[in-house]
């Protein structure tokens, strides 16, 4: 198994194969599965992401049981239709899909965790907007998911992807870095550029705390996926422009892990710190938990 991003980049270069090939090979070997089984599983994941995004803009949108989140993807879609946004339609398309996916998640709809449910909007946010920019075929979209998975496994096995262990940097931070690396490959960048994009994306979200209001995967989680997507697109563009990082991707993973260990428990998915610990956050907590008791 690949245990570092350096190994992935070196192998892709030596063998002159794309990173998604390495991901598929490893999966078939370790899980003793066939190519068809592996491919169709990823195809199902892609289909799940498409369904969630589509569901998010049906009618007035989807709403969580608490009513704390929902309906924003529909608002963004309408706003985009006016043709005038500050960050551009490619960015806002990504943001809409990221927020939409997490709205479906908060409403207990079906999503694909990437790498977690709380961060499930970041990857589709990036994928479905560059799909249009780069005219990606279905096959290429599946390649994107395999590439991002190989980077994700490095984070998961060397650091962590749970907010309860590492904060939101481990969830949306990891998701953003994985998507940035895959976006670079989809755009024709080199394996080194994928690693630079990964490192930039992760470094930019280092220290991000996990502070869900009332312990729910709603506030601020849904909007953090908008930033996860935007950050990935920026990091990928930087790498494709040739901007490099002094701190390499494996070091960034290690740094993320250490920062997670240094975070107090209140900032690791307990709902006790950060925005959860503001007067409004506390009032929502009391109201939501009061309702249920």
């Amino acid at each position: 198994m690949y245990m570092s991003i350096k190994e992935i980049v070196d192998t892709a270069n030596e063998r002159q194969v794309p990173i998604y090939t390495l991901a598929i090979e490893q999966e078939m070997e370790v899980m003793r599965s066939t190519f068809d089984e592996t491919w169709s599983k990823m195809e199902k994941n892609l289909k799940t992401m498409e369904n969630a995004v589509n569901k998010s803009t049906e009618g007035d949108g989807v709403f969580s049981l608490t009513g704390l989140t929902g309906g924003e993807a529909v608002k963004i879609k309408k706003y985009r239709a006016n043709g005038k946004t500050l960050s551009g339609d490619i960015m806002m398309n990504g943001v809409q899909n990221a927020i939409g996916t997490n709205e479906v998640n908060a409403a207990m709809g079906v999503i694909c965790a990437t790498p977690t449910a709380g961060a499930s909007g970041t990857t589709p946010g990036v994928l479905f907007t560059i799909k249009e920019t780069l005219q990606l075929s279905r096959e290429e979209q599946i390649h994107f998911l395999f590439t991002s998975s190989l980077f994700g496994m490095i984070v998961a096995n060397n650091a962590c992807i749970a907010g309860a262990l590492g904060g939101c940097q481990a969830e949306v931070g990891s998701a953003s870095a994985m998507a940035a690396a895959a976006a670079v490959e989809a755009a024709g960048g080199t394996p080194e550029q994928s690693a630079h994009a990964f490192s930039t994306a992760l470094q930019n979200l280092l220290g991000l705390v996990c502070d869900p209001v009332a312990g729910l995967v709603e506030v601020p989680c849904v909007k953090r996926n908008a930033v996860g997507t935007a950050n990935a697109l920026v990091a990928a563009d930087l790498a494709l422009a040739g901007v490099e990082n002094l701190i390499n991707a494996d070091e960034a993973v290690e740094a993320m892990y250490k920062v997670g260990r240094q975070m107090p428990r209140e900032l690791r998915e307990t709902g006790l710190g950060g925005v959860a610990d503001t007067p409004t956050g506390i009032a929502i907590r009391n109201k939501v938990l009061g309702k249920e008791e």
Partner: protein
Amino acid sequence: MSVVTMREKKNVSYKSCFDVIGPVMIGPSSSHTAGALAMGLIANKLFKKLPKKVVVKYYESFAETHKGHGTDLAIISGILGFEADDSRVLEAIKIAESKGIDITFLEKSGDSPAGHPNTADIYLEDDSRYIRTMGISVGGGLIKVKHIEIDGFTLQLEGSLPIMIAISGSDNLELELHRIFKKHDVDINNSTSLEKDGKYLYQFDLDSQLSSDARKELEKLSETANVIIL
């Protein structure tokens, strides 16, 4: 009770790319919903039928946030044998109660006995037996099983899945298990054998998923042994 064999090897928790792009699941949390459901499924596989009584103890982050994450629904879904993307997850507690299952959730204060913020301790019983399992949800829906009590045996585990357990009244089973592992090229990371009151328990931490042929052959042993593949 005596430990007969023990062999250690470095464990990689996330073995499949679908551990990080996946699972497909009902929201809202991979660790607190999908992971909790996976823990319930472990209890289901250990007990092998519907219990009459369920007691779930939550620790740390699970204790603080289980209500908002649908953790209760998820654990009960697993105990009922539902998969993570089954639409019945949302109705799981109602379904369980309609089957006469008595359910209790307890929020424990203090540190997790498993040393992890996402810990659940699940106890199932009916008139004739009980099982207990404590799991930790390590992120992205992946779990580790740290503790199992079954058929009079207690196991402390490293916890990475897949794990295979076989319990029998005869120690001939061990040879048969090793024959099957060898035939199907199954790598064992760690193994434990226990003996108690003329009963034998064999537990194996497997390096990777069993092929369907190996699984079939192992399941055939269930005529004479309690075979559990987690």
